[in-house]
């Protein structure tokens, strides 16, 4: 915790029409952390992700990545600076193969130019082969190598979710943002996912920020949790602190929810 924060968000806010979707949001992420972002529906969690990744430009505040200001940067530039994400509703390149989905994300790591591709110069083959090898290695980790030639849209839902995470990793992030990765999964599948997340964090040296409504997952693997409500940060702390925070119980968890472990 003595390191410099990898991500430092201070007083960030955005308006939609009259609605303050996010207001004075603060967050510090240190390298290697796994942080949860929770809150009622419509609290502004996804909007925070959109602000961090450049999809929306904050109307106020500052987002610093490794000491560099990134607000308002185009999404692709943010990604190249080291943040990548998954989406709440899966957004794959449906007609492309599983392999190509991942290769697309390796795009900015390769160097061969349009000219060398058009004229099939040496660089093209070297670059493409490198991408392919990397992509296949990654797919193996996610147990998707067997279906690498399937179109992404033909994967079962769980496979699509995993592919989305794999693709996000291929973009080479330091910071990975996961938006409700367990949505639509049954408890058993969620268990597998938790293991997977822990594994890739180690393997790829990642800092992870995740949004999730599945409390078993959030409480199970996050080290710290931030809670948003109506665009405002209402609580922050370890899972235990957050779980017992009266405001969080009131706005989000409800009474005796833990015993039900939804």
């Amino acid at each position: 915790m003595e390191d410099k924060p990898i991500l430092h968000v201070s007083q960030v806010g955005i308006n939609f029409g009259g609605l303050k979707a996010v207001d004075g949001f603060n967050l510090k992420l240190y390298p290697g952390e796994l942080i949860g972002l929770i809150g009622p529906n419509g609290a502004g969690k996804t909007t925070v992700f959109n602000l961090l990744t450049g999809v929306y430009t904050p109307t106020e505040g500052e987002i610093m990545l490794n000491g560099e200001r990134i607000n308002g940067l185009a999404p692709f530039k943010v990604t190249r600076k080291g943040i990548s994400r998954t989406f709440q509703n899966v957004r794959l390149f449906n007609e492309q193969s599983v392999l190509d989905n991942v290769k697309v994300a390796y795009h900015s790591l390769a160097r061969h130019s349009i000219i060398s591709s058009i004229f099939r110069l040496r660089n093209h083959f070297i670059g493409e082969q490198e991408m392919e090898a990397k992509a296949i290695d990654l797919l193996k980790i996610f147990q998707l190598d067997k279906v690498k030639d399937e179109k992404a849209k033909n994967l079962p839902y769980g496979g699509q979710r995993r592919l989305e995470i794999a693709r996000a990793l291929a973009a080479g992030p330091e910071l990975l943002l996961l938006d409700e990765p367990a949505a639509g999964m049954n408890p058993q599948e969620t268990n597998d996912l938790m293991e997977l997340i822990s594994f890739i964090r180690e393997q790829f040296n990642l800092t992870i920020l995740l949004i999730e409504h599945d409390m078993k997952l959030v409480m199970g693997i996050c080290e710290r949790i931030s809670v948003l409500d109506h665009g405002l940060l209402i609580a922050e702390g370890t899972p235990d602190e957050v779980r017992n925070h009266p405001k969080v119980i009131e706005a989000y968890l409800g009474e005796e929810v833990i015993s039900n472990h939804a």
Partner: protein
Amino acid sequence: MEWLQQLFNGISLGSIYALIALGYTMVYGIIKLINFVHGEVFMIGSFTGFYAIAFWGLGFFPSLVLSMTVCAVFGVVIERVAYKRLRNSTRIAALITAIGVSLFIQYVVIYIRGAQPEAYPNVLPNRTLDIFGIQISSQSLLILLVSVVLMIILQFIVHRTKIGKAMRAVSFDPDAAKLMGINVNNTISATFAIGSALAGAAGVIFGVYYTKIDPLMGIIPGLKAFIAAVLGGIGIIPGAVVGGFVLGIVETVVSAFGFSLWRDAAAFIILILILIFRPSGIFGKNSKEKV
């Protein structure tokens, strides 16, 4: 005075565009199809009116009603035969089909009666009124009135009536609409019927106002109406009318400056400029996809 006259010229030209664009935007709004056939329905409407007047001796209003009816049926038939199968295909496939159907109609009509133009009989008295020194023909006033009234009626139908709400629901998600108990096929047919009837009305009015009709007459007004609809924001009913007026006035002003040859180019330049600053048209909500 010349300028006032030109402004009025622009408005009357624009109201023709608006009239055609209304039906265009209506169909577009519901099934997201750039219905290129609209121009041909307009042509069929015009010819129906022509035959009704010239050969069966009907008056203006009976011919108008007849032509609207014929076109409504025609539009529904086209939808059922050509578009229905493509509901779940890509929109571009439907667009190509629309282009195909539109060529088909043009050339079937040419095959039947040749390509030569026809002159509309004079069924509506046309008086030229001199108001503050500008010449206003009573027919152009009529057209202006008709387009504005139709716009209001349509706007009411789409936003206030049950069938209108059903149309909008179908336009967004046909399957979810079915789950509401909406009969999707009938709703789409109703949309085509209304849109095509409008095209038919526009065809008759166009014929009376401009006199000349021919089998290829639908192409240019169809394109212009499309531009007008886009300009106003496709699918938005008042947008079509405003888009039509903007287009008419731009074209007229350009001609009035003596650049009549650049008129269409100017129309497109304005269109592109407006789109660059308002990428979904004048009235279109610039709704970025929610992520």
